[in-house]
């Protein structure tokens, strides 16, 4: 097959086919083999993405139920509804399920898998069998963790601090091994994405023509590959100490619990960047598409992703300012943490700048992103505030910290996840969701989120420590407000879920590229065929992921004539 000459190739992609009547797309990856076996043993990155979507959504709902139970108990200061032990198991499993089963695998697993090959113009990820293996690793890890939960659960908190985690009679080892296996699923996914980005790019697709979502996933993959093995070994050390009495962290035998905290947070701080970097990638894509404008400072965003990935490894000590760490090293960690904050701030200004001189269309994904902007800036700056030493002395292990990381994990990462689901819904399922219900779901999620977590900042200021089953009475008012907020948040998530499920079943088919995006993934059909593109896409010299300033445009504008 001779290579088409440059000019000829450009025309082929400049004219988008005129808007023909919307018919059910010919066979695509969804209806290409519908036996259960074809799904369970699929090597198609898109089907693996759908499997991840279902699994992580189950994890998200399970974690959400735990959260609602915790909030209900906190309505009253005294013992009520269930015992302290049950409460401790609840918040532990809320942490473990939400972090290891949803937040870390969700955006890389679902959208990384689905979109990376499409955005790179490739047929699949570099190692499809390895990709399927990562799904089954995820299933094994999740099954082990839930088995541990059913047989008594752990009451150590998701941080497993020794010597409590090595001495408590609860079922900690299965959950540790579950998290260990989930770690490997994350490493394998990260490895797959790094190799894919390096070797599977379409002809003409240089590094700085990559969509910013690919930069986000690439930076996340680097962290996954480097940080997760350390967590795997630390959890193994705790399991070994519990079962064989190795005494690595046993304080009476010369062990140092602060060493455990060092090794644990060496992974767990970069892990929060594993959660937020893909979300940032989604935000860059959605803001660019809905303002029909190039990202304002593409290089700043791209380099900031890598900056966060590498400098993010330096700041883990800010979790231990008051846990017996030396004053000097606390100062060093506080300084290094400030550097990471700079990259996030730079990205935020670029996103807002993207709307300058664009033509902004307020649809559901964009609504989530505007919410993301406020929560991410507020959550991020409270994070930098908590990295200021004297304030952390007052705030450490109080509800201020709980509010801070929920602002980032729920306010930023989950909002971006919701934006991604709505934005790529037509591409993934070829169906349209109802805009009205989508926006109302988003509205309830915002209101519920603010009413739930804003009072927790004030609780933290007042000095209510975290993980408290019973609390002093003067904290009750804010706790009640927060619990009511959690109900509104649950309603918001419920409405969104129903809207999407309804659209899946009874939504009318979406025509190709309904948002008018110039992203590479939108050049495939909605939903794409099994090997993504009929002909190998080639990126012309001045074509790019955000070429909104060029003549070619979406089907809709073909009608109006540009």
């Amino acid at each position, binding site marked *: 097959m001779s290579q088409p000459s440059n000019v000829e190739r450009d025309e082929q992609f400049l004219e988008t086919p005129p808007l023909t009547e919307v018919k059910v797309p010919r066979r695509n990856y969804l209806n290409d083999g519908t036996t259960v076996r074809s799904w369970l043993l699929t090597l198609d990155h898109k089907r693996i993405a759908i499997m991840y979507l279902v699994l992580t959504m189950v994890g998200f709902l399970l974690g959400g139920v735990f959260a609602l139970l915790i909030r209900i108990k906190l309505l009253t200061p005294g013992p009520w509804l269930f015992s302290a032990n049950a409460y401790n198991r609840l918040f532990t499993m809320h942490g473990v399920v939400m972090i290891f089963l949803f937040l870390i695998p969700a955006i890389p697993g679902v959208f990384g898998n689905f979109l990376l090959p499409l955005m790179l113009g490739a047929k699949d990820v570099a190692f499809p069998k390895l990709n399927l293996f990562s799904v089954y690793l995820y299933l094994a890890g999740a099954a082990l963790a839930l088995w541990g939960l059913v047989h008594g659960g752990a009451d150590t908190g998701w941080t497993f601090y020794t010597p409590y985690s090595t001495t408590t009679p609860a079922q900690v080892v299965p959950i540790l091994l579950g998290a260990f296996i989930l770690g490997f699923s994350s*490493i394998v996914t990260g490895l797959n994405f790094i190799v894919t980005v390096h070797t599977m790019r379409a002809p003409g697709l240089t590094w700085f023509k990559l969509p910013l979502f690919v930069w986000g996933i690439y930076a996340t993959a680097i962290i996954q590959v480097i940080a*997760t*093995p350390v967590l795997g*070994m630390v959890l193994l050390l705790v399991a070994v100490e519990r079962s064989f009495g190795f005494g*690595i962290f046993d304080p009476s*035998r010369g062990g*140092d619990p602060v060493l455990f905290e060092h090794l644990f947070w060496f992974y767990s701080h970069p892990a929060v960047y594993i959660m937020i970097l893909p979300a940032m990638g989604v935000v860059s894509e959605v803001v660019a598409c809905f303002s029909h404008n190039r990202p304002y400072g593409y290089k700043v965003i791209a380099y900031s992703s890598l900056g966060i990935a590498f400098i993010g490894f330096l700041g883990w000590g800010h979790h231990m300012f008051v846990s017996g760490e030396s004053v000097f090293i606390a100062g060093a960690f506080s300084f290094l943490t400030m550097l990471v904050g700079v990259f996030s701030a730079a990205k935020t200004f670029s996103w807002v700048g993207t709307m300058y001189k664009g033509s902004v269309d307020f649809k559901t994904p964009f609504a989530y992103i505007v919410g993301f902007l406020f929560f991410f800036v507020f959550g991020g700056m409270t994070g930098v505030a908590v990295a200021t030493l004297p304030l952390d002395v007052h705030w450490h292990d109080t509800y201020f910290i709980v509010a801070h990381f929920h602002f980032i994990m729920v306010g930023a990462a989950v909002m971006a996840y919701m934006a991604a689901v709505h934005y790529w819904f037509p591409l993934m399922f070829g169906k349209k969701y109802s805009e009205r219900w989508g926006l109302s779901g988003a509205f309830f999620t915002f209101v519920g989120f603010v009413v739930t977590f804003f009072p927790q900042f004030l609780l933290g200021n007042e000095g209510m420590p975290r993980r408290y089953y019973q609390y002093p009475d003067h904290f009750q008012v804010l706790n009640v407000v927060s619990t009511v907020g959690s109900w509104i948040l649950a309603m918001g998530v419920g409405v969104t879920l129903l809207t999407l499920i309804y659209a899946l079943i009874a939504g009318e088919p979406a025509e190709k590229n309904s948002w008018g995006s110039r992203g590479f993934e939108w050049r495939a059909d909605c939903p794409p065929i099994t090997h993504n593109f009929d002909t190998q896409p080639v990126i012309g010299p001045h074509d790019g992921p955000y070429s909104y300033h060029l003549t070619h445009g979406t089907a809709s504008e073909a009608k109006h004539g540009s």
Partner: protein
Amino acid sequence: MVAESALLHGSDGELAHGPKLAHHFETMEKQVHAARFGVWVFLGSESLLFAALFGGYSVYRTLNESAFALCSRELNLTMGTLNTLLLITSSFTVALAGYFIHHDKHRASAFMIFLSILMGFGFLIIKGFEWTADFHEGALPGKFFHLEGIPQAGGSQFFSLYFLLTGLHAAHVIIGMGLLAWAMNKVIRRRVSSRYDLPVEVSGLYWHLVDLIWIFLYPLLYLV
């Protein structure tokens, strides 16, 4: 796309059937490049599996410097040195295996891999002797540690780390030997040629990583 079919049938052309070109790669050469890069990233992440233990080792060594020195003298230095020489030589033979496969000398290459696996067994056997000697001596990890003359704090930490580090390394030696056996099978069955030697190279790289880690373990554990 014409080039890659030539790739499969090496000069001597007696490949039973070469590796399958996956549908999502344009050329065989890109697939091999991706595989090698993937193996390298895997080696980087696998070596970081030891990071937590090296971190623990360095912290506890700064805390009880002298206790670590005393414990390290409890270990059998001759066996440790022998193991180091064994692993280095096996790394050498694996490298030779790669060399021979470049020159399509399948039998020599298979023999070299066989030698390396043999040395791997030797390493494990010596390790077994060392561990049983430690068990009898009482140089055991954590709460089982009862060596007199060595302060409790340093001693139990050293031997916990010793057993964890050597145990994890031994596990990697076993995995490495499995990979080498898989590669040897490929060489004997002439699945590989000078054009396509990925299995030999991948198992070689893994074995060299295992040797690399032992090169650091040896001075840290035996020569404190």
